[in-house]
């Protein structure tokens, strides 16, 4: 026998005029805490906000910055190797192509996915999520929330190229058979990783779901 689906009232914390603490997840009643600005969670002491502050503006700004950094990150050399008086600069893509030519395609794939594909995909997904929030879209909210979750989790892996450069610099320079140094591309690349991480953190997935509540006419947007 299948269980009878229970009818649970769909009500959000915001509709109930409550604020969920972003740090310790305690449900707080703002009226019991005094004035509207400078609310502090009584349990953990974090500042209380119903939604992340200026979420859309901040995320847009960080994404645009990341889009700009993404170009020099891919065009400028990330490493320069000087061996027997011969200097050779490598961008991320030329490193990937080198690995393909030498038959190490699993490594080529790892670097391509982590350094080129993931940051770009992250920017595209966040842009898409921002646009759908601004259009008050209620289309496939659950899948879009999942998309956000994946974006948030996967971004860190882009750091792998920065770490490879660090390890190579340590090993090769001491070995005295060649010198290797990080190029300007590495700084822009690190900037892409850091700004997209901040962008994912400043995006508030609850804004997507707010569109659903405003559609049901239960909440008036101010």
């Amino acid at each position, binding site marked *: 026998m299948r269980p009878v689906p229970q009818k649970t009232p769909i009500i959000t914390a915001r509709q109930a005029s409550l604020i969920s603490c972003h740090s310790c997840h305690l449900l707080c009643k703002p009226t019991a805490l005094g004035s509207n600005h400078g609310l502090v969670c009584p349990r*953990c002491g974090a500042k209380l906000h119903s939604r992340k502050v200026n979420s859309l503006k901040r995320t847009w700004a960080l994404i645009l910055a990341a889009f700009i950094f993404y170009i020099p990150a891919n065009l400028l050399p990330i490493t320069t190797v000087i061996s027997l008086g011969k200097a050779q600069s490598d961008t991320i893509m030329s490193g990937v192509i080198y690995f393909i030519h030498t038959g190490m395609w699993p490594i080529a794939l790892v670097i391509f996915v982590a350094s080129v594909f993931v940051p770009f995909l992250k920017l595209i997904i966040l842009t898409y999520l921002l646009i759908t929030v601004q259009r008050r879209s209620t289309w496939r909210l659950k899948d879009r929330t999942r998309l956000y979750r994946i974006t948030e989790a996967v971004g860190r892996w882009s750091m792998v190229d920065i*770490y490879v450069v*660090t*390890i190579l610099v340590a*090993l090769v320079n001491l*070995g005295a058979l060649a010198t290797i140094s990080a190029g300007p591309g590495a700084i822009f690349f690190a900037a892409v990783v*850091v700004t997209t991480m901040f962008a994912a953190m400043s995006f508030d997935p609850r804004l997507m779901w707010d569109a659903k509540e405003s559609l049901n006419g239960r909440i008036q947007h101010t």
Partner: protein
Amino acid sequence: MSGLIACHECDLMQRVGTLPEGSTATCVRCGAILHKRKPNSIERTLAFALSGLILFGVTNAFPFLSLKIGAQVQETKLITGILELHKSGMSEIAFLVFFTTILVPFLQLTGILYVVLSVRFGRLYPKFRRVFRYINLLQPWGMMEVFMLGILVSIVKLAKMAKIIPGISIFAFFALIVVIAAAISSLDMHLVWEKCDQYRKKHR
């Protein structure tokens, strides 16, 4: 309002009662994880955090990777690459690598130890709430497992040039990745805040 939580991803309010040990509550609307109840959370986390600190010491004190060319062996430590980058004028990257692979793991371990010891002995140490909040904020910035992937890629890259010998530190580093992940996942956030609340109510 006891037992009532708003989902941190879609804001839906729902009642999460006391969960049986080892079970997980997910949001009925968006599927986000609301609460994971861990068995023996405090004791396990204490054990992981202590062993993590020992492994952290080993990781940073001993040689990490060595490069062998002919009869010549060059040893590097975890910090060597960071110092080299700093020397060559790439201080921003040097700092980022230092922050994500050394500083954050250390702060996470000591922070978790501080919080867990505090709960274990039933008293709130100074700045308890702030320390616990910062542990959660730091979590996305600890990237040791990504560094591990970086090590693998570098080894493959250099395999034709020279022989790479793994040092003691690299094994400690692998163990540290597992131990930190275990410490973070075994720490029951809700339980700690509940204990914190109880203590504050008792001593008001």
